[in-house]
């Protein structure tokens, strides 16, 4: 079974983010998504250390130590940017103003419970940052992750064994093998990558997965997922360097 690489997955997630959305990209792999947001769409990036309208990394020699993202990497400001203090920044999450956040995961349960901050290992130093606030605050919480851990066990599980970040908070899981939507009936597969089959996914995860791929549900493809249906959506060519206009 083959899947897709991390950049291709980042581009796939970027395709589902509509114009006008206010989006927080978590530390690590989700940060890659910014590289694939189409230049011709206005999508506002939020960083929890106090900025809306975050731009890409600065040119060499233009690094401003007062201007960083949540991963403490240097960034830039776009026209229309705004700065604010931490209580306002997290009020934007808890208050339901943030449209989408994309987080990494150790585990996601079939009910949408997320575990991504602590393995519970005895020598681990716990660090939660803003993950718990993002997980319960954004209108849509997407997870970007490999389907399997390095030792081959599924990150999608019936019950999380690691300490939780949030309960029932995840709406969609993008993995290197398939996209899963969290539904009241468990996980539904809405897209598969490479030569992956549903039976393989069921075997790897041990979960009852329903098939909600557009072509499987309605052969004439009349069913659609709105984010992919947006007018003016640019083709993903994998060559975009950032979201600067």
């Amino acid at each position, binding site marked *: 079974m083959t899947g897709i690489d991390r950049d291709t997955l980042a581009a796939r997630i970027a395709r589902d983010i509509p114009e006008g959305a206010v989006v927080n990209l978590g530390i690590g792999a989700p940060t890659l998504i910014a590289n694939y947001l189409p230049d011709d769409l206005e999508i506002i990036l939020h960083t929890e250390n*106090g900025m809306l309208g975050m731009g890409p990394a600065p040119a060499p020699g233009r690094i401003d130590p007062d201007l960083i993202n949540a991963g403490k990497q240097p960034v830039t400001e776009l026209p229309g940017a705004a700065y604010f203090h931490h209580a306002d920044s997290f009020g934007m999450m808890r208050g339901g103003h943030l449209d989408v956040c994309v987080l990494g995961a150790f585990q996601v349960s079939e009910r949408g419970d997320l575990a991504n901050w602590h393995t519970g290992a005895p020598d681990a130093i716990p660090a939660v940052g803003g993950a718990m606030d993002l997980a319960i605050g954004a209108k849509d919480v997407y997870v970007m992750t490999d389907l399997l851990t390095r030792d081959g066990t599924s990150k999608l599980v019936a019950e999380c064994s690691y*300490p*939780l970040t949030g309960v029932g908070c995840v709406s969609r899981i993008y993995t290197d093998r398939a996209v899963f939507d969290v539904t009241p009936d468990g996980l539904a597969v809405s897209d598969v990558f490479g030569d992956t089959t549903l039976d393989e996914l069921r075997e790897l995860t041990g979960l009852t997965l329903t098939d909600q791929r557009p072509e499987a549900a309605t052969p004439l493809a009349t069913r659609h997922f709105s984010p992919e249906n947006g007018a003016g959506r640019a083709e993903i060519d994998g060559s975009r360097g950032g979201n600067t206009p």
Partner: protein
Amino acid sequence: MISKTSAGLADAVSDIRDGSTVMIGGFGRAGQPVELIDALIAQGATDLTVINNNAGNGDTGIAALIGAGRVRKVICSFPRQTDSYIFDAKYRAGEIELELVPQGNLAERIRAAGAGIGGFYTPTGVGTLVAEGKETRTIDGREYLLELPLRADVALISAFKADRWGNLVYRKTARNFGPLMAAAAATTIVQVDEVVELGDLDPETVVTPGIFVDRVVPLGERPWLAAGEFVGAEKVA
């Protein structure tokens, strides 16, 4: 005449006592008042509880304060970073206490203290380890947990400019926890690039009104700025 301008860094931190709870502004290195922290290390106060988002980077600022053995406890959201080796070693050796607070709850607890709020119900952390032992309440069908205000004896923060009444403006993402901590501490000490003439700060753009500020220390313009304009730097300081 009101003047909150201190004679210098050493003077500004001279009365910080052993056992104090000290809020320190900054997110990573942005907005971290490194010069005030250095003055605190030189002053010698120990057995401190430090409240910050992190637990120090590299071997300067908060990391140096921890490395000097002055910190009994850290209250923060994200201690573990690629360059938090000083805290990591102390924590693994059992020489420092850690209270982990989700970042938004940390910010709101500090805000609550400054605003005279006795506590607040938050959805963040419900059903997780951080909810253990905390009162919960269902409001309009959603479960919340009670978080209490977080106060300090002293706040050390960094801002861009001040006037002698203590009005502050910040620069970019260096603002972060500064305005919250300024209001939540009994004594708030601020390092700034410049103390400008009274009336030179546009009242519409003042972020922290001087009522929350006790002392300001001007340090001069930082190397990546010229007359307040960004001129570039090779790397993050």
